């Protein structure tokens, strides 16, 4: 596992799509883990936003309990958005994005690997923070698992949809604000489904419905959206 994975080291005759996918995933994870500060920023943002809510709205446990699912989801949405900017930017700056686009193999797989790597370092930690932050917001214990499951299913959708926006704005100087305008409206269904799963569970009902919808959305997004990201990347590289 220790050997550095450079593209030149891939055994050319065996260079199957799986090798391509695995190589990209490993490279992206390694790059992300070497920059722990950048990795921690969206998470810190998530925690800070959550902290602001009791200060700005009300520290009453009952009020917080009612708002907790919505607040956690909105903070997760914004934290995801914050992480999106960096998704393709560094690769574009050092030229490796162009190499990725120019490669003969389909762009779908490296894009899927990149999105998976990004989710592993943003969406997954957000999900794992829920027990802690939910406790601080007095999230009802029955809602904790539906909340986590909802985030685990919903954040991949957010990352993938956001990836389209990030790819479209990768070459632009004024990417940030525009990116928010492009992707936040698309996040609406995920927000609604995720919050309602947690709220249903909090009021003692079965949260399976919205969670199944989220699962359906995640499978569809995982299948279809990388094509859109790939197409957007080709344009984004040209536009820059």
């Amino acid at each position, binding site marked *: 596992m220790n050997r550095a994975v450079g593209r030149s080291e891939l055994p050319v005759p065996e260079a199957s799509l799986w090798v391509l996918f695995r190589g990209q995933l490993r490279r992206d994870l390694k790059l992300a883990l070497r920059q722990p500060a950048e990795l921690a920023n969206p998470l810190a943002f998530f925690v800070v936003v959550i902290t602001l809510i009791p200060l700005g709205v009300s520290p009453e446990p009952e009020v917080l309990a009612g708002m907790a699912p919505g607040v956690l989801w909105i903070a997760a949405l914004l934290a995801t958005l914050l992480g999106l900017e960096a998704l393709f930017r560094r690769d574009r700056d050092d030229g490796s994005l162009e190499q990725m686009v120019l490669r003969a193999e389909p762009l779908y797989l490296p894009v899927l690997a990149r999105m998976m790597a990004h989710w592993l370092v943003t969406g997954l930690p957000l999900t794992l923070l829920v027990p802690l932050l939910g406790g601080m917001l007095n999230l009802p214990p029955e809602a904790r698992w539906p909340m986590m499951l909802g985030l685990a299913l919903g954040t991949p959708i957010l990352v993938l949809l956001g990836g389209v926006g990030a790819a*479209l704005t990768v070459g632009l100087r004024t990417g940030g604000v525009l990116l928010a*305008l492009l992707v936040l409206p698309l996040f609406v269904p995920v927000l609604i489904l995720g919050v309602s799963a947690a709220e249903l569970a909090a009021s003692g009902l079965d949260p399976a419905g919205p969670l199944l919808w989220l699962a359906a959305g995640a499978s569809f997004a995982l299948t279809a*959206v990388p094509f859109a990201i790939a197409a957007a990347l080709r344009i984004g590289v040209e536009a820059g």
Partner: protein
Amino acid sequence: MYIPEPLRRLWHRLGSPRWFYETSGPWVPWLGAAAALLITVGTVWGLAFAPPDYLQGDSFRIIYIHVPAAYLAQAGYVLMAVCGVVLLVWRMKLADMVMTAIAPVGAAFTFLALATGSIWGKPTWGTYWIWDARITSVLILLFLYLGIIGLRRAIERPEAAGRACAILAIVGVINIPIIKYSVDWWMTLHQPATFSITEAPAMPPIMWVPLLLNVLGFNLLFALSVIQGTRTEVLVRERRTRWVNDLCREGSMTYTGDTEMSLDRQ
């Protein structure tokens, strides 16, 4: 697959922005006149002569503006996505120009639908804004339009901007039904229908004929705005071609002497 010959010829001709510019020119005044006539008759009839609703009184009359605007707001986005597909699949430049023209017009109709709906809400619901499912999804539609406009403004090269907007429009159009149903569902979950849009179950013809006239008129107005926008876009994008230069020179020929023309031609 059999495609009738005239249709095939039209499809190929649409590949030429110049053909579109020259063919659409004579249509513009007729479209404008027809739209003005239909909207005037429909609106005057609807606002002044149609009987008041037995439940909502005179406030229902806003549907004569609101319904056509709301319907065109949604249709415009779908049309933009269709143009996006045509652009990405056939690389038809004209589709991009039409898409550019639709975005601001569609956003304006969406805003009109929101504004008229909110004005209607004041006498009916007692407030200008409530988070009703339909209002919320139209507001999100407005954001989607603004995103498209913003993206096009941000990318400098028009070809790249067009294809980027095409992808965004296609992703958006797949999302629109999902957003709509999720918002409807959110409403049923949060608020049991406190307000329901009460409309007379069957309108008498004297009420729906003006609506029909206005729907037709607004359609023509939409088409007119998009065609005019597209024509402007054709001229801007093709400004380096000879035919546009000739066109501009024709406009100023009255005071350009022959000598200068011949100098230019060399």
